[in-house]
Each structure stands twice: as C-alpha cells, then as structure tokens.
C-alpha cells in the first residue's frame, strides 16, 4: 500500500510541476496554422456537426472537450481529410491549412495527411513491424525518400519521449511494448513524416495515469514546434496541456456545435455560458 501511495504522491508532484511550467495565459500571437470556417458535417442524411468556426494558432495546443457523441472526433477528422473515407460522409464549409483550402479540387489528400498527422484513441502500431520499422513506416507507406533513417528514428523517438526506453531494442516488435509506450511510438511514427499539425483523438483514454502523464509531457514539448489539436474527455488534461479550449455540445438528435471557445484559462476559470460552467465542473456529461 505504501508503495502505491508514494507512486501516487510522486505523480501528483509531477503534475503540479507540469502545471507550473505551462503558461496558460499565452495570448493568441503569431500566425494561424489552421482554420475551420463554417464547417458542417453529415453522415448520409444525418447532420452531425453544425457551423463550426475555429482558428488554431501556430505552435499552440487546442483542446476539444464535450460529452460523447457531440462531434469532436468527427470534427478533428475533417481537419486532415480522414472524414471523407467513411462511406456517406459529406462536408460543407472550408478548412484552411496555412491559408489554403485543403478541400480544394487540386489538393492531394495524401499530402494533407502527411502535413497534418494523427494519433488515435487506441495505440495502433503495426504489430508485424519492429519499433524502428514502425517509426519509418510513414516514409515507406507514403513513398517518401529520406536517407537519414537512423537520425529520424532517434529524433522522433526522443521527441515522443520514448528513446531512452527503447534505444537498445529498436529491432524488437512493437507489440512487445506497453500501451503507453505504443502510444508514444505511434506519436513518433506520426512525427517521422514531419507534420506541421498533429491531431490527437483521445490519445490517453486507453492508458494508465503514469503513461498519460508522459504523453502530456510529450505534448507540451512538441507544441514548441508544431500545432496540436487534442480531443479529450479528461478536464484536468485539457487544463494541463492546452492553451485554448473549445466546448462542443449536441442536444438529443441535433447536430453538435461549439458552445464556447477561447483561452483555456478563460473556459475553465471564467466561462461565459452556464452550460460550459456546468460541464467543466463535472455537473453533466
């Protein structure tokens, strides 16, 4: 029991350290990396998302929060054109990446997905590949030619906070890693193709608290260089890692929409909408 207590204590300490590090009042400076304009989404005849407008400043972390089924994951999938791969999916509006519409006729979705990487809820390394193979798989799958493979492997695994744990067994199978390690491996894999934006769809929901903390550290580190958009059901996580927060909500049988968005400190400290206040205080959802 004592050891459990100590571990918990240690974790709490780590968390508070993290919170100190994070400057959550970071004002919207610099350029806009991505922007969603009047985005509405349908699956078949059912409208699931209504008129979302949101800007993502360069090198910031934006958290999308809200109850299940309110369209957060759907929204995030419109940002790198994964949405369109679902049969019956439709979209209205514009998604701008570095100023140009990613849904324009002449845009190759493959290029978009390489610039805007994604990490999913369940860690999904390729089980038949080695750790090294997984990191490099993005290059292989997309046909990118790069010669400095060893450097890429070391760099991205370091960025993902996994290098120290796996550097001596890069040729081991990815399936041998723990869930948390697999998720960081997947982050390294997404980073290897050099994206400018990383989308994360509940990246910690399948992980234990210690692994979650490691991923959050990774997110903070990465946000110095890339823009991150993260869907999370964990309020504390949103507070810990994000600069901005958007609160999504869907009434029964109605499409989801954004109730309120802004600096994370504002959304959690001084929300303008009663529903936001209720949600961030755990009163519903």
């Amino acid at each position, binding site marked *: 029991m004592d050891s459990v207590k100590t571990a918990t204590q240690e974790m709490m300490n780590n968390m508070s350290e993290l919170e100190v590090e994070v400057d959550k009042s970071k004002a919207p400076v610099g350029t806009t990396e991505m922007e969603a304009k009047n985005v509405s989404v349908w699956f078949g005849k059912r409208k699931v998302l209504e008129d979302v407008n949101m800007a993502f400043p360069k090198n910031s972390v934006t958290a999308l929060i809200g109850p299940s089924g309110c369209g957060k994951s759907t929204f995030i999938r419109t940002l790198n054109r*994964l949405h369109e791969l679902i049969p019956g999916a439709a979209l209205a509006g514009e998604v701008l990446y570095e100023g140009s519409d990613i849904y324009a006729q002449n845009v190759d*979705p493959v290029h*978009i*997905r390489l610039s805007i990487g994604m990490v999913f809820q369940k860690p*999904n390394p390729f089980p*038949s590949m080695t750790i090294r193979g997984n990191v490099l798989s993005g290059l292989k799958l997309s046909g990118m030619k790069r010669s400095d493979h060893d450097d890429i492997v070391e760099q991205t695994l370091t960025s993902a906070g996994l290098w120290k744990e796996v550097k001596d067994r890069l040729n081991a199978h990815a399936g041998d890693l723990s869930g948390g390690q697999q998720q960081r491996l997947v982050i390294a*894999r997404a980073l290897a193709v050099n994206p400018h934006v990383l989308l994360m769809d509940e990246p910690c929901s399948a992980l234990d608290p210690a692994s979650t903390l490691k991923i959050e550290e990774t997110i903070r580190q990465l946000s110095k260089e890339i823009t991150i958009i993260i869907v999370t059901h964990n309020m504390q996580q949103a507070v810990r890692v994000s600069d901005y927060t958007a609160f999504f909500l869907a009434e029964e049988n109605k499409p989801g929409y954004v109730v309120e968005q802004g600096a994370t400190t504002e959304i959690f400290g001084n929300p303008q909408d009663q529903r936001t206040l209720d949600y961030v205080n755990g009163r519903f959802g």
Partner: protein
Amino acid sequence: MATDTPLRDLSGGKRAHRGDRVFNRTITGAAFTSLVVLAGITIFLGAQTIPVLQDQGLSFLTTTVWDTTGVPPEYGIAGMLYGSLLLAVIALVIAVPVSLFLAVFMVFLAPAKLSKILTNLIDLMAAIPSVIIGLWAFYVLVPPAEEWQQLLNQYLGWIPLFANDSGNFSGTPFMAGLVLAIMMIPIVTSITAEVLKRTPPELINAAESLGCSMWTMLRYVALPFGRGGIVGGIMLGLGRALGETIAVFFVLKIVFDINFFNILESGGGSVATLIVSKFGETNGEFEVQVLLAAGFFLFLGTLLVNALANLIVRRTERLRS
C-alpha cells in the same frame, strides 16, 4: 519461503458441472471421429495398394504404360500424378490473382450493397455441383476457350509453354485448369474476403493517417495481416482442384504419357479422372485394386500438399512474431 505448503488438487473444477462434462465428451468424441475416418480411409486404400505394388513394383509410380491386356498386364500412373499436379498449378495461377482482386474489390472498394450481392453470388457459385460445371464447360465454355487458346498460341507460341504442334486445342490441360480455376475462385475469394474484413480498423486508420494509398495499405497492412488466412483459403481451393473428378472428366482428354508443360496441347493426366473413367470397364479384382492404389497416391499427395501449406503458414507466422 512457504515452499512446504502442499499443492492443491485443481482438477475438481473441471469436473464440477455435469452439463459441461457431457458437452466436453461429445466434442472430444466428434473430434476423434474425423481422425478415425481418416485412418479408416488410409488403411483401406493402403491395403489395396500393397498387392498392386507387390505385383507392379515401383514402376507403378514411375512409368506411363497402361496395358490391361498384356501378359502380364502393366500399369503406370506417373503421367496421371504429374497431370493432377499440373492442372492444380494452372488453376492456381489463374484463380489466385482473380480471387484476390475480387476479394479486395468486395471489401475495400465496392459500395456496401454491391458488396453484399457479390458475396451472396460467390457463395452460391461455390455450391454449384461439379457435374453442372463440367456440363456447362463442355457445352458453353469449351468452344470460345478453344479460340482463346489459339490466340494464346498465335502470339505466345514461341514460349514452349504455349506451343501447339498438332493444331488440336481440345481436351488440353489449360482447358481443365481453367475449369478448375472457376471452381476454386468462389472458395478462395470467399475466405480471402472474410480475412480482409477482419483487418483491424485501427491499423487501417493508422495507414490512412500516414497518407498511404489504397495499394500501399493493402501491401503493408491488410495483406500481411491476413496472410495466414489467405494461404489457408488457397490451400482449400487447391484441395478441390487436386481431387476434382467429374468437371475435369468433361474437358480433359486423358492420355497416359506425361504432358510435361505443353498446356495448350491436347491430352493430359488426372488421377481422379482416370479412376472415374476406368472404373466402369474394369476387368477383375486386380484392376479395381490398381485404381484404388492410384487413389491412395492421390490421397497421399493431397495430404502432402496440405502439410506443406501448414508448414508455410506456420513459418511465415513465426518469422513475423
């Protein structure tokens, strides 16, 4: 150290429930039935084979003579054994790519409705009796297929495989292989589609988010994931091709000499078809035994192919993990 604590008897748990006990015995019994049947076939055929081998020696397997009236009569099934294998290979070469394409189309490309219709049609195709396929091939497929063979020969005849000196394109190994391929396609397609459908969606997600095309997703994710199952499906199809009798009977001209690789030349061999075509005209017990001995070696061959396939599947699995 509590090493002195005695081990507990845990076997009681397995015996506890009476329903479970009955169920377990039934299942075990059913499982053993298949072994008993297999053993029964082997013993029966083996017993018939011994006198044939005693009389004919190994030349039964290595020669191509079939002289029922000679003194003494001589029998050799080398051409038949080789022919069965050749037909299976031709069928594989045609059926495997077609089945893979069809399965990929059904699982990843076709709209849901079309995919469902195709799945049902293909399952239906697998249920067509082989005698119907044979009759259909004889009346409908053979005339145009002879022209296709002529075209193949005309343009690719410089390759020995497609040579034809006689000008006779009927009853060729290619024709029989084509019919076997038609019979294999539903089996291989159905199993391959089932396996591809099981590709974990999170792996497909991963591949898509890494900007890969449909082709690379298949090559690096779906096909490696399903490799064991797909090879298994191909082997099931191959089993059908090796043992198929009636459909081949309609389209292949049986000759005892070995037709090594002239697949567009009239005449080839097939153990199963040999048995069915000679069975009605046997003269005396020994000739029946000769045919049963031929069956024994066909049986042995299919077992061998299956064992080999298992080995391949297991080895690729081991290389992966």
